[in-house]
């Protein structure tokens, strides 16, 4: 944790969030190394992800925190890649702290896209079979393990896993189809 910037908001960061971030750093580093050529860029991106987590991660459900970190990492790596195309070492020029603060700001376009995606996703979830919705809710919202879900619903563990996987596959298919039919 000492590799990441000291922030006033960090004191408000809950311990579970810290644990999730620390457990996710190896995976995030592996993920970012395929998107950013320089190891220093990977470190910079991880710092931006950390700051965003501190400032904006409070509302994310525990079960979705690692996913949220990877999504932020992907967005930030893309932003850094675009910035590096026109400017060299944006974070070095602007100063690390200032650059991190600006990068952590809320992009209005990104917010609109996120809102639309969430709306489409909600509609797609409502069309899922009820049993699949139950598994998704228990896993994402209630943060139960698949073993606990299987016991609570009285279904085999493999069935719970399969229903979750099929739910995600169907949701992604529906989102992709909606994006193709409505490119706006």
């Amino acid at each position, binding site marked *: 944790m000492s590799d990441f910037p000291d922030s006033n908001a960090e004191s408000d960061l809950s311990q579970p969030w810290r644990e999730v971030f620390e457990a996710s750093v190896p995976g995030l580093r592996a993920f970012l190394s395929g998107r950013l050529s320089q190891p220093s860029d990977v470190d910079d991106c991880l710092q931006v992800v950390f700051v965003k987590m501190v400032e904006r991660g409070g509302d994310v459900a525990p079960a979705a925190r690692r*996913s949220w970190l990877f999504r932020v990492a992907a967005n930030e790596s893309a932003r850094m890649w675009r910035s590096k195309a026109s400017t060299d070492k944006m974070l070095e020029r602007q100063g690390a702290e200032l650059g991190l603060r600006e990068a952590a700001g809320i992009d209005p376009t990104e917010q609109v896209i996120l809102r639309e995606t969430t709306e489409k996703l909600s509609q797609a979830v409502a069309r899922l079979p009820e049993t699949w919705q139950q598994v998704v809710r228990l896993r994402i919202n209630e943060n139960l393990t698949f073993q606990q879900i299987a016991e609570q619903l009285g279904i085999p563990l493999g069935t719970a896993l399969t229903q979750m996987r099929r739910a995600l596959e169907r*949701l992604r298919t529906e989102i992709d189809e909606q994006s193709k039919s409505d490119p706006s």
Partner: protein
Amino acid sequence: MTTPAASSPTPPPDSTERCMLYLLGEYDADQAADFERQLQSSHELADELLRQAELIAGLSQSPVISQSPMIPPSVEVVDSRLPLLASVLAIAACIALFVLAVQPGSPDSDRVASLSNSAQSIPSEEILIARAWADSRFDEMLDDGGLADLYVDDALALATDDAEDVDATLSWMFIGVSANIDAHSEDATNDG
């Protein structure tokens, strides 16, 4: 984050499911490390991981998932206050109906009152019939100059004043019998 060990499912070959399990923290340390090694060398796996991450992160912000209370079919949550509340409501409804029924001036109360008086109204009608019958007989006797006034008055007094104590259904018969006796005595007098 959940980190099941013994109960953790074996990583399947399917990359979608592997990404899902990794992102949801279902892998133990060894499984996660193995997945991360593959992630570093496989762009396809990284792309799949990102798609799954976007879906799961989006699901957590979806009101359908985050705001809907989860009630599994095997668990029925019943508010223990509901039976008590239903009983109180039922009792209150009964009291309200009773109060409405006995309230003076209401149609229901009139009906109830008429029903309660029906037992008394039946003897009264019989007395009226008897009185009418006796009157007719009395007039007839007066016209005939009979002397049965005393019997009739006594009989009427018995039928009206003691109506509550004596079975009134018999009073008009008594009047009738008395009148017959009078008539016979009158006939005898006339014959004699």
